[in-house]
């Protein structure tokens, strides 16, 4: 029987084909138990084969946690990851660029090995879910045959290199960054200097400062195209930023150099990689991103080290070879440009044209955005879109960080026909890059770390907002909503007008899905500033939060201010007050609806749940204490907003102490207010015993408290104060999660001290 390997022989780049053979051999060795599971997990991740929810072989079906009896038993492809359990395949699409042939193959793979859906991610990748691991090698071969590699799509490596989807056709760019993004990807792919990172490394390119497309400030390395006049000649280069990142504790990238000449961008990227590999944290994953290295060294020292490293690099032809070919580089339109004529316009066209069509700087051509709900496109649609691309634009298709697809170089005169073809496929939804076009990470649908259903919420909001999109005021339509299923920020909730990330709260002994509401983030200016949480709201009330804030914005708006400007003018305190009763959860007997998540009728759980007879009373004490801790975090945020960095730092430390104390009191009521006492009791009862440990993050959040307690560090500058506030917020969230876990396991009532809690409460 012919295999894909035989069929595609000679069609794959030789080195890629060899790498896939090696990976297949490693799979066999792992099956035989000859490769250690942790090592194999990293090998698998570097091929883009990721874990997925329930791959530990168990799932709560709504009545309790049940084992999933996979046929190959408990044989694993990584720690706690069952071999047979379906996983996710991430496929790197450098700068989001795809051609129709690649789109056909992506569609085929989704159909044959996944669930018929290609999912576009917030970093221009494509993900396939529910993939059986044994299907990985043929998938990788079929991708390789059309020029796509999944190498280093996950794992501790250089991830997909992203770039503005409008690069090359944008009216505001300094120059087209596409060839630079592509060269960076090619140069660093599999490079020996990137093989020893402690964590992932993300790179983005942007053609200008003011727009959001590149999101440079939230990347480990971000480059903004700039030009300079030197000796009467225009010279290309990049304003280079390092140390940005969202994740649990977001950092805005700092300026490394205001002009790195184009021929230096690759060697500098290489030198940065070497410094990161050599000095970056390796053991503590939570502090291993380059942002922590930049912060601990300071940007000047970091830059000095990079420049020293640069001097030692042996010359590499590839640094500049592509630059010599740049004059010949450029996308060729398929047809001659011509303006939209007076032809009759079908129903829906005008609305779509208003939101989804961008006039290129090249006269007679447009970029047409295909809005994908939650970033999803079916195999059938993808294949048909490839066909449309062939006929209208040739090779010019890109994915976007807004989880859409754009067709570039569409002749204006073809727009009506194009719209009709998209419409027939269900791909003509208007509202690209508007409040309706919600970004969401996979959340509890498929992500192992998800707490709440980001996609369920996004689908609900999208349905509600789309129904009234036409009536929405333009100022509201221009807002952005981004949702993450947990604090890890894959949905980029920090950089939107309204951001939400999933948390949970214990109410009367039941776990209730909530979202933290994040306001004040800035999407423009390459994600110019990050929002901060103002309070947790039950998941089912989030649509009302959106209505409440958009209504208030319209009523109280001054002049032409944006929501972000409005939020910063009225302040987080006033916005938090508007939440009012929306933060409340009715008792389960009164309204059980709140106790399940959007799109999932199972009773909500973040693990196995149980309620002891006295749990309600114990809960009320700890929940009360934890809500006070939350209040302190909020006050810290207000200080931060007012530029009172020391006060913000002090308050955030107090919030952490209050959170720790709340937990300690569950076991030992007589804990004092002395920070040393609280920290030592917390360490002994919750850290050393690992009771506080998160299944994935381990003891990371406790380290925030310990470090702050040991160093007694003050705020210093705005960035440090902000980090302390973020850390305190996460620590308090972790206290909530720990308290829920402890109550569910009944461990709160172990020992004498706990019984005194119960007695006291009764």
């Amino acid at each position, binding site marked *: 029987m012919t295999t894909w390997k035989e069929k595609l022989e000679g069609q794959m780049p030789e080195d890629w084909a060899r790498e896939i053979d090696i990976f297949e051999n490693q799979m066999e060795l792992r099956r035989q138990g000859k490769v250690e599971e942790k090592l194999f997990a990293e090998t698998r991740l570097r091929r883009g084969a990721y874990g997925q929810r329930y791959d530990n072989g168990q799932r709560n079906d*709504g009545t309790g946690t049940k084992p999933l009896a*996979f*046929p190959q038993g408990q044989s694993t492809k990584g720690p706690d990851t069952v071999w047979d359990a379906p996983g996710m395949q991430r496929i790197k699409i450098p700068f989001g660029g795809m051609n129709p042939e690649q789109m056909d193959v992506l569609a085929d793979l989704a159909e044959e090995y996944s*669930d018929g*859906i290609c999912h576009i991610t917030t970093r221009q990748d494509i993900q396939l879910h529910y993939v059986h691991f044994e299907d990985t090698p043929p998938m990788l071969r079929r991708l390789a045959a059309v020029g796509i590699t999944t190498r280093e799509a996950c794992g501790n490596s250089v991830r997909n290199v992203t770039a503005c989807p409008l690069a090359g056709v944008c009216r505001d760019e300094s120059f087209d960054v596409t060839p630079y993004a592509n060269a960076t990807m090619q140069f660093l792919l599999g490079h020996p200097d990137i093989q020893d990172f402690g964590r992932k490394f993300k790179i983005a390119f942007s053609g200008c400062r003011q727009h959001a497309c590149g999101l440079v400030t939230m990347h480990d390395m971000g480059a903004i195209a700039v030009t300079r006049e030197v000796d009467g000649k225009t010279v290309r280069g990049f304003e280079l930023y390092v140390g940005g990142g969202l994740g649990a504790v977001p950092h805005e990238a700092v300026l490394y150099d205001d002009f790195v000449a184009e021929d230096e961008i690759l060697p500098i990227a290489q030198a940065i990689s070497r410094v990161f590999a050599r000095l970056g944290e390796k053991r503590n994953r939570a502090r291993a991103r380059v942002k922590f290295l930049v912060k601990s060294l300071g940007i000047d020292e970091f830059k000095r080290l990079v420049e020293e490293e640069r001097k030692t690099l042996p010359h590499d032809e590839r640094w500049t070879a592509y630059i010599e070919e740049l004059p010949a580089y450029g996308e060729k339109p398929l047809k001659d440009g011509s303006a939209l004529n007076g032809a009759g316009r079908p129903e829906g066209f005008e609305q779509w044209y208003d939101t989804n069509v961008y006039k290129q700087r090249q006269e007679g051509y447009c970029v047409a955005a295909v809005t994908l709900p939650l970033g*999803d496109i079916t195999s059938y649609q993808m294949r048909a879109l490839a066909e449309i691309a062939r006929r209208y634009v040739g090779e010019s298709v890109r994915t976007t960080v807004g989880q859409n697809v754009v067709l570039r170089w569409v002749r204006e005169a073809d727009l009506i026909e194009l719209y009709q073809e998209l419409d027939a496929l269900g791909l003509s939804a208007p509202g690209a890059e508007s409040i309706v076009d919600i970004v969401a990470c996979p959340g509890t*649908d498929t992500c192992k770390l998800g707490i709440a259903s980001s996609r369920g919420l996004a689908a609900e909001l999208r*349905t509600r907002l789309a129904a009234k999109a036409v009536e929405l005021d333009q100022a509201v339509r221009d807002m952005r909503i981004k949702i993450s299923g947990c604090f890890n920020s894959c949905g980029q909730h920090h950089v939107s007008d309204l951001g939400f990330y999933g948390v949970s709260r214990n109410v009367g002994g039941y776990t209730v899905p909530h979202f933290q509401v994040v306001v004040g983030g800035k999407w423009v200016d390459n994600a110019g500033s990050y929002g901060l949480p103002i309070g947790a709201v039950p998941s089912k009330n989030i649509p009302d939060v959106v209505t409440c804030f958009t209504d208030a914005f319209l009523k109280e708006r001054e002049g032409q201010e944006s929501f972000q400007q409005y939020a910063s003018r009225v302040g987080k305190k006033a916005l938090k007050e508007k939440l009012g009763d929306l933060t409340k959860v009715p008792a389960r007997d009164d309204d059980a609806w709140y106790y399940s998540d959007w799109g*999932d009728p199972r009773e909500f759980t973040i693990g196995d749940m149980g309620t002891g007879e006295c749990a309600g009373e114990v809960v009320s004490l700890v929940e009360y204490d934890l809500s006070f801790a939350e209040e302190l975090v909020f006050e810290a945020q207000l200080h931060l907003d007012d530029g009172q960095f020391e006060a913000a730092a002090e308050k955030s430390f107090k919030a952490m102490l209050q959170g720790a104390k709340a937990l300690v009191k569950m076991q030992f009521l007589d804990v004092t207010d002395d920070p040393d006492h609280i920290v030592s009791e917390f360490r002994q009862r919750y850290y050393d015993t690992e009771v506080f440990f998160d299944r994935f993050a381990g003891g990371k959040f406790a380290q925030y408290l310990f470090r702050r307690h040991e160093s007694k560090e003050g705020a210093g500058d705005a960035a440090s104060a902000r980090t302390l506030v973020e850390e305190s917020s996460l620590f308090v969230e972790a206290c909530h999660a720990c308290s829920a876990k402890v109550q569910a396991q009944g461990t709160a009532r172990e020992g004498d001290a706990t019984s005194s809690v119960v007695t006291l409460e009764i």
Partner: protein
Amino acid sequence: MAHSVDNLQRIGVKFFLSEAPDPEKVIGVFHRWIQNGSVDGMLIDVADYSHVEQGPGVLLVGHEGNYAVDWTRNRPGVVYYRKQPLEGDLGERLRTVCETALQAAELLEDESDLGAGAKLRGDEVQIFANDRLLAPNDAGTQSAFQPALDGLLDRLFNGSSRQLCRDEDPKERFNMDVKAETGAAAAALRARLND
């Protein structure tokens, strides 16, 4: 000479519905099926794609195969497609896949929550192959597949006359759409397969 389609395992089938049920209700039904182990196979999770127009709808993801109430090309139907190998020759595998789909369709017809939406039309079925290597969408595959298909259709539609049609786009997966003169409810179709 043997054709590669003889080795086909990733067989799928879609029985069309008279109208579309409410996806939100289907989600609830599928979760309940997992709790009760109502259909064959190891059931893992429910995936909701009802937000995608003309999409795969709501899936009940299993290890051996996926079930779905599917809206592809705006034509709602009950789908089952196999992901893991089955015993028997091609005809036998085709019969097993159809029977599994019909078992699910029968249960859906009985779900009072779904109302009339989940009633099978019973006169049209689509067979497809999620394997472009073993079953490219061409005339060669069709003629090699035909004997197994005829065997299935003779039983399923009790010898009633039928029309076969294939979307010949070579990029599409191999597919056969069959319309019979007379239809039947899911239970009756299933009983015929087991006769």
